[in-house]
Protein backbone atom coordinates (compact mmCIF):
# COMPACT_ATOMS: atom_id res chain seq x y z
CA UNK A 1 0.00 0.00 0.00
CA UNK A 2 1.38 3.38 -0.98
CA UNK A 3 1.45 6.13 1.60
CA UNK A 4 -1.58 8.35 1.49
CA UNK A 5 -1.16 11.61 -0.30
CA UNK A 6 -1.28 14.65 1.94
CA UNK A 7 -4.86 15.68 2.51
CA UNK A 8 -4.17 19.19 1.27
CA UNK A 9 -1.77 20.47 -1.32
CA UNK A 10 0.10 23.60 -0.29
CA UNK A 11 -1.73 26.75 -1.38
CA UNK A 12 -0.11 28.46 -4.36
CA UNK A 13 1.82 31.54 -3.32
CA UNK A 14 -0.46 34.56 -3.17
CA UNK A 15 0.01 37.03 -6.00
CA UNK A 16 2.31 39.97 -5.62
CA UNK A 17 0.95 43.12 -4.00
CA UNK A 18 2.73 46.36 -4.62
CA UNK A 19 1.84 50.03 -4.34
CA UNK A 20 3.72 52.99 -5.74
CA UNK A 21 3.00 56.39 -4.22
CA UNK A 22 3.68 59.82 -5.62
CA UNK A 23 3.04 63.05 -3.74
CA UNK A 24 3.53 66.35 -5.56
CA UNK A 25 3.42 69.80 -3.94
CA UNK A 26 4.26 73.33 -5.00
CA UNK A 27 7.85 74.03 -3.91
CA UNK A 28 7.37 77.75 -3.27
CA UNK A 29 9.91 78.72 -5.96
CA UNK A 30 7.65 78.33 -8.96
CA UNK A 31 8.28 74.59 -9.33
CA UNK A 32 6.93 71.30 -8.02
CA UNK A 33 8.56 69.16 -5.32
CA UNK A 34 7.98 65.45 -4.82
CA UNK A 35 8.14 64.83 -1.07
CA UNK A 36 6.74 61.36 -1.68
CA UNK A 37 8.16 59.13 -4.40
CA UNK A 38 7.95 55.56 -3.21
CA UNK A 39 8.02 52.63 -5.57
CA UNK A 40 7.56 49.03 -4.54
CA UNK A 41 8.35 45.70 -6.20
CA UNK A 42 7.90 45.96 -9.96
CA UNK A 43 6.65 49.52 -9.63
CA UNK A 44 9.91 51.50 -9.52
CA UNK A 45 9.73 55.29 -9.80
CA UNK A 46 12.36 57.74 -11.06
CA UNK A 47 12.22 61.47 -11.09
CA UNK A 48 12.91 62.82 -14.56
CA UNK A 49 13.83 66.26 -15.79
CA UNK A 50 11.34 68.98 -14.95
CA UNK A 51 9.61 70.81 -17.73
CA UNK A 52 9.13 74.31 -16.38
CA UNK A 53 7.03 74.08 -13.24
CA UNK A 54 6.11 70.47 -13.97
CA UNK A 55 7.86 67.63 -12.14
CA UNK A 56 8.37 64.46 -14.18
CA UNK A 57 8.07 60.90 -12.92
CA UNK A 58 8.88 57.74 -14.85
CA UNK A 59 7.60 54.28 -13.98
CA UNK A 60 10.61 52.24 -14.99
CA UNK A 61 12.01 48.85 -15.71
CA UNK A 62 10.28 45.84 -14.39
CA UNK A 63 6.81 46.81 -15.52
CA UNK A 64 6.21 43.44 -17.15
CA UNK A 65 3.95 42.43 -14.28
CA UNK A 66 1.06 41.98 -13.61
CA UNK A 67 0.72 38.25 -13.61
CA UNK A 68 -2.57 36.65 -12.69
CA UNK A 69 -3.17 37.05 -8.95
CA UNK A 70 -1.05 40.20 -8.67
CA UNK A 71 -2.51 43.41 -7.35
CA UNK A 72 -0.64 46.56 -8.31
CA UNK A 73 -1.63 50.06 -7.29
CA UNK A 74 -0.30 53.45 -8.29
CA UNK A 75 -1.43 56.43 -6.24
CA UNK A 76 -0.62 60.01 -7.10
CA UNK A 77 -1.64 63.02 -5.10
CA UNK A 78 -1.10 66.48 -6.57
CA UNK A 79 -1.47 69.24 -3.98
CA UNK A 80 -2.74 72.78 -4.64
CA UNK A 81 -1.00 74.24 -7.68
CA UNK A 82 1.36 71.27 -8.13
CA UNK A 83 2.23 70.14 -11.65
CA UNK A 84 3.10 66.55 -12.39
CA UNK A 85 3.76 64.46 -15.48
CA UNK A 86 3.84 60.69 -15.23
CA UNK A 87 5.10 58.44 -17.99
CA UNK A 88 6.25 54.84 -18.16
CA UNK A 89 9.44 53.57 -19.74
CA UNK A 90 7.84 50.62 -21.49
CA UNK A 91 4.52 48.99 -22.26
CA UNK A 92 2.81 47.01 -19.51
CA UNK A 93 2.16 43.37 -20.33
CA UNK A 94 -0.76 41.61 -18.69
CA UNK A 95 0.40 38.00 -18.33
CA UNK A 96 -1.37 34.82 -17.29
CA UNK A 97 -0.79 33.59 -13.76
CA UNK A 98 -0.46 30.05 -12.53
CA UNK A 99 -3.77 29.81 -10.72
CA UNK A 100 -5.89 31.38 -13.44
CA UNK A 101 -7.09 34.12 -11.10
CA UNK A 102 -7.32 37.68 -12.43
CA UNK A 103 -4.72 40.35 -11.82
CA UNK A 104 -5.69 43.82 -10.66
CA UNK A 105 -4.15 47.14 -11.54
CA UNK A 106 -5.49 50.20 -9.76
CA UNK A 107 -4.59 53.79 -10.46
CA UNK A 108 -5.83 56.49 -8.12
CA UNK A 109 -5.23 60.14 -8.89
CA UNK A 110 -6.13 63.02 -6.66
CA UNK A 111 -5.86 66.61 -7.90
CA UNK A 112 -6.29 69.58 -5.55
CA UNK A 113 -7.23 73.13 -6.58
CA UNK A 114 -5.17 74.40 -9.53
CA UNK A 115 -3.18 71.14 -9.75
CA UNK A 116 -2.20 69.90 -13.21
CA UNK A 117 -1.45 66.28 -13.95
CA UNK A 118 -0.48 64.63 -17.22
CA UNK A 119 -0.83 60.85 -16.94
CA UNK A 120 0.66 59.40 -20.09
CA UNK A 121 1.75 55.77 -19.60
CA UNK A 122 2.74 53.47 -22.45
CA UNK A 123 0.34 50.84 -23.82
CA UNK A 124 -1.21 48.03 -21.87
CA UNK A 125 -0.83 44.79 -23.82
CA UNK A 126 -3.32 42.05 -23.03
CA UNK A 127 -1.43 38.80 -23.63
CA UNK A 128 -3.19 35.57 -24.53
CA UNK A 129 -4.43 33.74 -21.43
CA UNK A 130 -4.17 36.77 -19.16
CA UNK A 131 -7.06 38.23 -17.16
CA UNK A 132 -6.59 41.77 -15.93
CA UNK A 133 -8.95 44.22 -14.23
CA UNK A 134 -7.82 47.80 -14.46
CA UNK A 135 -9.47 50.43 -12.33
CA UNK A 136 -8.53 54.08 -12.83
CA UNK A 137 -10.13 56.67 -10.63
CA UNK A 138 -9.33 60.37 -10.72
CA UNK A 139 -10.80 62.90 -8.32
CA UNK A 140 -10.40 66.52 -9.31
CA UNK A 141 -11.02 69.80 -7.58
CA UNK A 142 -13.04 72.08 -9.87
CA UNK A 143 -9.99 74.17 -10.92
CA UNK A 144 -7.67 71.19 -11.54
CA UNK A 145 -6.50 70.14 -15.02
CA UNK A 146 -5.96 66.57 -16.08
CA UNK A 147 -4.64 64.99 -19.24
CA UNK A 148 -4.94 61.20 -19.21
CA UNK A 149 -4.14 58.68 -21.89
CA UNK A 150 -5.11 55.02 -21.95
CA UNK A 151 -4.12 52.61 -24.70
CA UNK A 152 -5.02 48.96 -24.85
CA UNK A 153 -3.46 46.52 -27.28
CA UNK A 154 -5.25 43.21 -27.57
CA UNK A 155 -2.61 40.53 -27.93
CA UNK A 156 0.97 40.78 -29.13
CA UNK A 157 1.46 40.63 -32.91
CA UNK A 158 -0.73 37.91 -34.35
CA UNK A 159 -1.76 36.69 -30.90
CA UNK A 160 -5.27 36.26 -29.50
CA UNK A 161 -5.97 38.67 -26.62
CA UNK A 162 -6.43 37.85 -22.97
CA UNK A 163 -9.39 39.11 -20.99
CA UNK A 164 -9.24 42.77 -20.12
CA UNK A 165 -11.70 44.80 -18.12
CA UNK A 166 -10.88 48.46 -17.69
CA UNK A 167 -12.97 51.02 -15.85
CA UNK A 168 -12.21 54.70 -15.88
CA UNK A 169 -14.00 56.97 -13.44
CA UNK A 170 -13.41 60.70 -13.23
CA UNK A 171 -15.05 62.73 -10.49
CA UNK A 172 -14.85 66.50 -10.64
CA UNK A 173 -15.99 68.66 -7.73
CA UNK A 174 -17.71 65.60 -6.27
CA UNK A 175 -19.76 64.94 -9.42
CA UNK A 176 -19.17 62.18 -11.97
CA UNK A 177 -17.66 63.52 -15.19
CA UNK A 178 -16.79 60.28 -16.96
CA UNK A 179 -17.48 56.70 -16.02
CA UNK A 180 -16.98 53.92 -18.49
CA UNK A 181 -15.94 50.33 -18.57
CA UNK A 182 -14.52 48.31 -21.41
CA UNK A 183 -14.45 44.51 -21.60
CA UNK A 184 -12.54 42.59 -24.24
CA UNK A 185 -11.29 39.10 -24.80
CA UNK A 186 -12.53 35.59 -24.18
CA UNK A 187 -13.93 36.41 -20.71
CA UNK A 188 -15.90 39.43 -21.91
CA UNK A 189 -19.67 39.34 -22.53
CA UNK A 190 -20.75 38.39 -26.04
CA UNK A 191 -20.47 40.80 -28.93
CA UNK A 192 -17.32 42.58 -27.67
CA UNK A 193 -15.50 42.10 -30.98
CA UNK A 194 -18.55 42.54 -33.22
CA UNK A 195 -20.27 45.44 -34.97
CA UNK A 196 -21.34 47.06 -31.67
CA UNK A 197 -18.05 46.14 -29.99
CA UNK A 198 -14.65 46.93 -31.45
CA UNK A 199 -15.28 45.31 -34.83
CA UNK A 200 -11.99 43.45 -35.14
CA UNK A 201 -9.68 46.28 -34.11
CA UNK A 202 -6.77 45.30 -31.90
CA UNK A 203 -5.71 48.66 -30.55
CA UNK A 204 -7.97 51.11 -28.80
CA UNK A 205 -7.44 54.07 -26.62
CA UNK A 206 -8.54 57.40 -25.39
CA UNK A 207 -7.21 60.73 -24.40
CA UNK A 208 -9.11 62.69 -21.79
CA UNK A 209 -8.43 66.35 -21.18
CA UNK A 210 -10.20 68.08 -18.30
CA UNK A 211 -9.62 71.80 -18.33
CA UNK A 212 -11.76 74.51 -16.70
CA UNK A 213 -11.12 76.78 -19.68
CA UNK A 214 -13.43 74.50 -21.69
CA UNK A 215 -16.32 75.90 -19.59
CA UNK A 216 -16.15 79.10 -21.62
CA UNK A 217 -14.76 77.59 -24.82
CA UNK A 218 -15.74 73.93 -25.23
CA UNK A 219 -14.07 72.00 -28.06
CA UNK A 220 -16.45 71.06 -30.87
CA UNK A 221 -17.44 67.45 -31.47
CA UNK A 222 -15.53 66.09 -34.45
CA UNK A 223 -15.01 62.77 -36.17
CA UNK A 224 -11.49 61.71 -37.11
CA UNK A 225 -12.24 59.20 -39.84
CA UNK A 226 -14.58 56.28 -39.34
CA UNK A 227 -13.06 54.96 -36.10
CA UNK A 228 -12.16 57.92 -33.94
CA UNK A 229 -14.09 60.85 -32.52
CA UNK A 230 -13.63 63.92 -30.39
CA UNK A 231 -16.47 64.17 -27.91
CA UNK A 232 -16.96 67.07 -25.50
CA UNK A 233 -18.28 65.66 -22.22
CA UNK A 234 -21.06 67.09 -20.06
CA UNK A 235 -18.52 69.28 -18.26
CA UNK A 236 -15.29 71.09 -19.14
CA UNK A 237 -13.62 68.07 -20.67
CA UNK A 238 -13.05 66.41 -24.00
CA UNK A 239 -12.58 62.73 -24.69
CA UNK A 240 -10.90 61.47 -27.82
CA UNK A 241 -11.72 57.82 -28.46
CA UNK A 242 -9.99 55.82 -31.16
CA UNK A 243 -9.94 52.31 -32.55
CA UNK A 244 -6.95 51.40 -34.71
CA UNK A 245 -5.44 48.40 -36.45
CA UNK A 246 -2.27 48.68 -34.36
CA UNK A 247 -0.58 50.54 -31.52
CA UNK A 248 1.44 52.81 -33.81
CA UNK A 249 -1.55 54.21 -35.65
CA UNK A 250 -3.40 54.61 -32.36
CA UNK A 251 -0.53 56.63 -30.88
CA UNK A 252 -0.42 58.89 -33.92
CA UNK A 253 -4.11 59.70 -33.47
CA UNK A 254 -3.83 60.34 -29.74
CA UNK A 255 -0.63 62.40 -30.11
CA UNK A 256 -2.43 64.61 -32.58
CA UNK A 257 -5.31 64.98 -30.14
CA UNK A 258 -2.89 65.78 -27.32
CA UNK A 259 -1.39 68.59 -29.36
CA UNK A 260 -4.85 69.94 -30.19
CA UNK A 261 -6.45 69.82 -26.73
CA UNK A 262 -3.74 69.22 -24.12
CA UNK A 263 -0.70 71.11 -22.96
Amino acid sequence: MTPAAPATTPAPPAGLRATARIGAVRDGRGGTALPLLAGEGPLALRRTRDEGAEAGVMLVGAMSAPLGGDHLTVEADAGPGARLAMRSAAATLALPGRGGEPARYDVRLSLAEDAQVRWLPEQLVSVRGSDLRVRTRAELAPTARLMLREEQVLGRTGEAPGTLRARLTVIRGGRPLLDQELSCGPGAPGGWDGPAGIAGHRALGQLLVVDPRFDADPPAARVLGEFAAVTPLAGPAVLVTALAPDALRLRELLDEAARAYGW
Partner: protein
Amino acid sequence: MSLATLLVLADGRFPAGGHAHSGGAEAACKAGRIHDAATLADFCRGRLHTAGVTAAALAAAAALGLDPVELDAAADARTPSPALRAAARRLGRQLMRAARATWPDPGLDALAAAFPRGAHQPVVLGTAARAAGLGALDAAHVAAYESVSGPATATVRLLGLDPFEASGVLARLAPELDGVAAGAAEAALLARTEGPDALPAPSSPLLEIAAQVHADWPVRLFAS
Protein backbone atom coordinates in the same frame (compact mmCIF):
# COMPACT_ATOMS: atom_id res chain seq x y z
CA MET B 1 -46.45 44.12 -10.00
CA SER B 2 -48.90 43.76 -12.82
CA LEU B 3 -47.73 41.82 -15.86
CA ALA B 4 -50.24 43.67 -18.05
CA THR B 5 -48.87 47.04 -16.87
CA LEU B 6 -45.39 45.87 -17.83
CA LEU B 7 -46.67 45.02 -21.31
CA VAL B 8 -48.17 48.50 -21.70
CA LEU B 9 -44.85 50.16 -20.79
CA ALA B 10 -42.74 47.82 -22.93
CA ASP B 11 -45.03 47.88 -25.98
CA GLY B 12 -43.31 49.27 -29.05
CA ARG B 13 -46.56 51.15 -29.75
CA PHE B 14 -46.38 53.03 -26.44
CA PRO B 15 -46.15 56.60 -27.81
CA ALA B 16 -42.65 57.41 -26.56
CA GLY B 17 -40.95 58.15 -29.86
CA GLY B 18 -38.53 55.21 -29.84
CA HIS B 19 -39.35 54.26 -33.43
CA ALA B 20 -37.40 57.27 -34.70
CA HIS B 21 -34.13 55.91 -33.29
CA SER B 22 -32.12 52.97 -34.55
CA GLY B 23 -29.80 52.52 -31.57
CA GLY B 24 -26.76 52.78 -33.81
CA ALA B 25 -28.06 50.31 -36.39
CA GLU B 26 -28.33 52.89 -39.19
CA ALA B 27 -24.64 53.79 -38.96
CA ALA B 28 -23.68 50.12 -38.68
CA CYS B 29 -25.79 49.14 -41.72
CA LYS B 30 -24.35 51.98 -43.81
CA ALA B 31 -20.80 50.92 -42.88
CA GLY B 32 -21.61 47.33 -43.79
CA ARG B 33 -21.08 46.10 -40.25
CA ILE B 34 -24.69 44.87 -40.15
CA HIS B 35 -25.65 43.12 -43.38
CA ASP B 36 -27.70 40.07 -42.39
CA ALA B 37 -29.40 38.35 -39.46
CA ALA B 38 -26.12 36.99 -38.05
CA THR B 39 -24.40 40.37 -37.97
CA LEU B 40 -27.59 41.92 -36.55
CA ALA B 41 -27.49 39.33 -33.75
CA ASP B 42 -23.86 40.15 -33.03
CA PHE B 43 -24.66 43.86 -33.02
CA CYS B 44 -27.61 43.39 -30.66
CA ARG B 45 -25.56 41.19 -28.32
CA GLY B 46 -22.76 43.77 -28.18
CA ARG B 47 -25.22 46.62 -27.57
CA LEU B 48 -27.09 44.67 -24.91
CA HIS B 49 -23.93 44.01 -22.90
CA THR B 50 -22.75 47.63 -23.12
CA ALA B 51 -25.34 50.38 -23.55
CA GLY B 52 -28.10 47.94 -22.56
CA VAL B 53 -26.50 47.05 -19.22
CA THR B 54 -25.86 50.69 -18.41
CA ALA B 55 -29.44 51.71 -19.30
CA ALA B 56 -30.98 48.77 -17.43
CA ALA B 57 -29.04 49.57 -14.25
CA LEU B 58 -30.01 53.24 -14.38
CA ALA B 59 -33.66 52.35 -14.98
CA ALA B 60 -33.64 49.82 -12.14
CA ALA B 61 -32.07 52.36 -9.78
CA ALA B 62 -34.67 54.99 -10.70
CA ALA B 63 -37.45 52.46 -10.19
CA LEU B 64 -36.05 51.73 -6.73
CA GLY B 65 -36.36 55.43 -5.93
CA LEU B 66 -32.72 56.56 -5.99
CA ASP B 67 -32.30 60.30 -6.54
CA PRO B 68 -33.06 60.80 -10.26
CA VAL B 69 -30.94 63.95 -10.43
CA GLU B 70 -27.89 61.98 -9.32
CA LEU B 71 -28.80 59.19 -11.72
CA ASP B 72 -29.06 61.67 -14.57
CA ALA B 73 -25.53 62.89 -13.77
CA ALA B 74 -24.37 59.26 -13.72
CA ALA B 75 -25.99 58.78 -17.15
CA ASP B 76 -24.20 61.86 -18.51
CA ALA B 77 -20.86 60.49 -17.27
CA ARG B 78 -21.62 57.16 -18.95
CA THR B 79 -22.37 58.80 -22.31
CA PRO B 80 -19.30 60.52 -23.78
CA SER B 81 -20.96 61.15 -27.16
CA PRO B 82 -22.90 64.44 -27.23
CA ALA B 83 -25.08 63.02 -30.02
CA LEU B 84 -26.07 60.12 -27.76
CA ARG B 85 -26.66 62.42 -24.77
CA ALA B 86 -28.93 64.58 -26.91
CA ALA B 87 -30.80 61.52 -28.20
CA ALA B 88 -31.21 60.14 -24.67
CA ARG B 89 -32.68 63.44 -23.45
CA ARG B 90 -34.99 63.76 -26.44
CA LEU B 91 -36.25 60.24 -25.84
CA GLY B 92 -36.56 60.98 -22.13
CA ARG B 93 -38.71 64.03 -22.81
CA GLN B 94 -41.01 62.12 -25.14
CA LEU B 95 -41.35 59.22 -22.72
CA MET B 96 -42.06 61.69 -19.93
CA ARG B 97 -45.04 63.16 -21.83
CA ALA B 98 -46.50 59.74 -22.48
CA ALA B 99 -45.85 58.46 -18.96
CA ARG B 100 -47.34 61.49 -17.18
CA ALA B 101 -50.49 61.17 -19.24
CA THR B 102 -50.66 57.43 -18.60
CA TRP B 103 -49.61 57.19 -14.92
CA PRO B 104 -49.97 60.65 -13.30
CA ASP B 105 -47.51 60.77 -10.44
CA PRO B 106 -45.68 63.39 -8.32
CA GLY B 107 -42.34 61.63 -8.93
CA LEU B 108 -42.72 62.10 -12.68
CA ASP B 109 -43.85 65.72 -12.19
CA ALA B 110 -40.77 66.46 -10.08
CA LEU B 111 -38.42 64.88 -12.61
CA ALA B 112 -40.06 66.78 -15.48
CA ALA B 113 -39.67 70.03 -13.54
CA ALA B 114 -36.00 69.31 -12.79
CA PHE B 115 -35.22 68.57 -16.45
CA PRO B 116 -37.51 70.66 -18.67
CA ARG B 117 -35.45 69.68 -21.74
CA GLY B 118 -35.57 66.03 -20.83
CA ALA B 119 -33.76 63.71 -18.44
CA HIS B 120 -31.87 60.68 -19.74
CA GLN B 121 -34.39 58.15 -21.07
CA PRO B 122 -33.47 55.26 -18.70
CA VAL B 123 -33.95 57.55 -15.68
CA VAL B 124 -37.39 58.57 -16.96
CA LEU B 125 -38.17 54.94 -17.75
CA GLY B 126 -37.37 53.82 -14.21
CA THR B 127 -39.36 56.69 -12.71
CA ALA B 128 -42.29 55.83 -14.99
CA ALA B 129 -42.08 52.17 -13.98
CA ARG B 130 -42.21 53.23 -10.34
CA ALA B 131 -45.23 55.46 -11.06
CA ALA B 132 -46.93 52.50 -12.74
CA GLY B 133 -46.36 50.30 -9.70
CA LEU B 134 -43.64 48.25 -11.35
CA GLY B 135 -40.37 47.22 -9.74
CA ALA B 136 -36.66 47.54 -10.44
CA LEU B 137 -36.41 44.22 -12.27
CA ASP B 138 -39.36 45.18 -14.51
CA ALA B 139 -37.74 48.50 -15.41
CA ALA B 140 -34.46 46.74 -16.12
CA HIS B 141 -36.20 44.25 -18.41
CA VAL B 142 -37.82 47.04 -20.42
CA ALA B 143 -34.53 48.96 -20.78
CA ALA B 144 -32.59 45.85 -21.76
CA TYR B 145 -35.24 44.85 -24.29
CA GLU B 146 -35.37 48.34 -25.80
CA SER B 147 -31.58 48.25 -26.25
CA VAL B 148 -32.00 45.47 -28.82
CA SER B 149 -35.55 45.80 -30.15
CA GLY B 150 -34.83 49.25 -31.59
CA PRO B 151 -31.86 48.13 -33.70
CA ALA B 152 -33.71 44.97 -34.78
CA THR B 153 -36.80 46.77 -36.09
CA ALA B 154 -34.66 49.52 -37.62
CA THR B 155 -32.63 46.93 -39.52
CA VAL B 156 -35.81 45.51 -41.03
CA ARG B 157 -36.49 48.96 -42.48
CA LEU B 158 -32.87 49.74 -43.41
CA LEU B 159 -31.87 46.48 -45.07
CA GLY B 160 -35.24 45.01 -45.91
CA LEU B 161 -34.29 42.19 -43.56
CA ASP B 162 -36.98 39.54 -43.18
CA PRO B 163 -38.96 40.59 -40.07
CA PHE B 164 -39.29 36.93 -39.06
CA GLU B 165 -35.50 36.71 -38.95
CA ALA B 166 -35.27 39.88 -36.86
CA SER B 167 -37.80 38.47 -34.38
CA GLY B 168 -35.77 35.27 -34.23
CA VAL B 169 -32.68 37.29 -33.32
CA LEU B 170 -34.54 38.91 -30.42
CA ALA B 171 -36.07 35.64 -29.25
CA ARG B 172 -32.70 33.92 -29.13
CA LEU B 173 -31.33 36.79 -27.01
CA ALA B 174 -34.03 36.26 -24.35
CA PRO B 175 -31.87 34.33 -21.86
CA GLU B 176 -29.15 36.98 -22.07
CA LEU B 177 -31.76 39.73 -21.68
CA ASP B 178 -33.05 38.07 -18.52
CA GLY B 179 -29.49 37.81 -17.20
CA VAL B 180 -28.75 41.46 -17.91
CA ALA B 181 -32.00 42.57 -16.24
CA ALA B 182 -31.30 40.48 -13.13
CA GLY B 183 -27.75 41.83 -12.88
CA ALA B 184 -29.02 45.40 -13.30
CA ALA B 185 -31.60 44.99 -10.53
CA GLU B 186 -28.90 43.62 -8.22
CA ALA B 187 -26.58 46.53 -9.05
CA ALA B 188 -29.41 48.96 -8.30
CA LEU B 189 -29.82 47.45 -4.84
CA LEU B 190 -26.11 47.91 -4.22
CA ALA B 191 -26.29 51.50 -5.47
CA ARG B 192 -29.00 52.22 -2.89
CA THR B 193 -26.38 51.87 -0.15
CA GLU B 194 -23.22 52.78 -2.06
CA GLY B 195 -24.48 55.48 -4.44
CA PRO B 196 -24.73 55.60 -8.24
CA ASP B 197 -20.96 55.04 -8.61
CA ALA B 198 -21.71 51.39 -7.83
CA LEU B 199 -23.82 51.06 -10.99
CA PRO B 200 -22.10 49.34 -13.90
CA ALA B 201 -20.78 51.50 -16.74
CA PRO B 202 -19.98 49.28 -19.71
CA SER B 203 -19.63 51.17 -22.93
CA SER B 204 -18.81 50.47 -26.53
CA PRO B 205 -16.22 52.81 -28.06
CA LEU B 206 -17.51 52.09 -31.55
CA LEU B 207 -21.14 52.92 -30.69
CA GLU B 208 -19.99 56.27 -29.31
CA ILE B 209 -17.78 57.01 -32.33
CA ALA B 210 -20.38 55.84 -34.87
CA ALA B 211 -23.05 57.99 -33.22
CA GLN B 212 -20.90 61.04 -33.91
CA VAL B 213 -20.28 59.92 -37.50
CA HIS B 214 -24.05 59.43 -37.94
CA ALA B 215 -24.87 62.83 -36.44
CA ASP B 216 -22.74 64.47 -39.15
CA TRP B 217 -24.73 62.95 -42.03
CA PRO B 218 -26.79 65.53 -43.90
CA VAL B 219 -29.62 63.04 -44.53
CA ARG B 220 -30.61 60.09 -42.40
CA LEU B 221 -33.61 57.89 -41.82
CA PHE B 222 -33.28 57.69 -38.03
CA ALA B 223 -32.50 60.38 -35.47
CA SER B 224 -29.79 58.24 -33.86
